[in-house]
């Protein structure tokens, strides 16, 4: 997956929009995911920041967001254990904050 560098004015979910796991999100079009043994390396072509998705399940969730009506559904579909759900919601909130994922 490869994303052209986009103009800095492109829409990025800002810190102002509170993360809501009950609504629909997607992986930002400014972001590329590179599969790695631990999960994936994330590169944002706009902010030029590297970050990491630290489990393969988190990669599945992020990729699956656009196919599900809300974040919870994407977490369930990725086979995340129920006990792990709060940790995943928290991680996704962080990804929304950084602009890796955004509301759609």
């Amino acid at each position, binding site marked *: 997956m*490869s*994303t*052209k*560098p986009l103009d800095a004015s492109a829409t990025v979910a800002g810190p102002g929009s509170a993360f809501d796991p009950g609504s629909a999100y997607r992986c930002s079009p400014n972001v*590329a995911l*590179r*599969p*790695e*043994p*631990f999960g994936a*390396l*994330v*590169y944002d*072509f706009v*902010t*030029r*920041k*590297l*970050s*990491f*998705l*630290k489990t393969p399940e*988190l990669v599945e969730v992020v990729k699956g967001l656009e196919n599900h009506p809300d974040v919870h559904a994407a977490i369930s579909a990725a086979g995340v254990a129920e006990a792990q759900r709060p*940790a995943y919601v*928290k*991680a996704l909130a*962080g*990804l929304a904050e*950084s602009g*890796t994922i955004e509301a759609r």
Partner: protein
Amino acid sequence: MKLVDHFQYGLNSPICLTWELTYACNLACVHCLSSSGRRDPRELDTAEAKHVIDELQRMQVFYINIGGGEPTVRPDFWELLDYSIDHNVGVKFSTNGIKLDKKRAKQLAATDYVDIQISMDGATAAVNDHVRGPGSFDTSIRALENLAEAGFGQPKISVVMTRENVDQLDEFKAIADKYNAQLRITRLRPSGRGADVWDELHPTAPQQKQLYDWLVANGDNILTGDSFFHLSAFGEALPGLNLCGAGRVVCLIDPVGDVYACPFAIHENFLAGNVRSPGGFQEVWQNSELFTELRQPQTGGACASCNHYDSCQGGCMAAKFFTGLPLDGPDPECVRGFGEQMLADRSSDTVIPKSVVNHSRSEPRNSRTPKAPTMLSLAPPPRRPDRACDESPLAGMPVPDAAPVAVPVAGS
């Protein structure tokens, strides 16, 4: 498993790739890590270089560090820069500033996805030019002026710390502030011609402490590329990955397409393959014998029982190798003095390895001996190295265990 622990087993693609485009250089710095000077006739041509960029794009290497030699003296440098950026491979290039006139500065200011690093090894012409040659300080300053005037956002000033410039740290910072640049300081390695001057130029033990104290006081806005992690044993840990990235997250492609484990290790013992061979760079990165070996867990060797081992991990592989110290022992600049002691204990028959790759203008032409591909298996494989290379973009970043973290890409 911590993220850092994953890194030691290697990644599908490098995070931090240095590509030296040419051995040609207008300068002849006494400490040049790649012994540059003359162009090598076998250097990758424009089409081959573009092919490598295509491959890096396929491997999702999102940005590269371009150096040399002096990369901008390649006539196709600007073409390759544009090609790379157009193919989603961002570029940070290191230069002595020779080609950064007002026109180029304007062009670069209008180019997205490029970072520039201007080398400067003294905060005054006297100190700088002693190492980098007459006029080189003025060239660097002129390049910084042109970039500032063109409105280029935050170039970096890259300083190799030496015995002669440790006292100038505040002055370097002032220069960086004046030109809206960011200061980056790195460690002098005994690599390339650096081996010839290392004894004379590497900071003294009291200077190492001085440097450490300065970093602790000013470090927030200073890039170090994790260069000085071996100084963490002084006390408070400096931020960093605590992992040598060589062959794991880091590597070097040299001008003739040879792939080495790290930019400071241009020596046949650390040569993994060539991008021109079947399978190209990807095959070398993913399957070469050397890189597979470097991705094995390491033992602390002579350092294992030291209570500072966790913070310094035995220091830099290249620094040990090119001073003739065992790779599983202390760094020559070990803050506890063990390295210094080992240097003193070297016997007259200690072989100090020297690279045959030498393009210095002071050398006779064609001095490079033909490479025997079997050397790798004949030579004892290097032990797992110990330190993140100073080019690592991860360097200087905290790697918490939870949740993904953002790292400044151009930050190193």
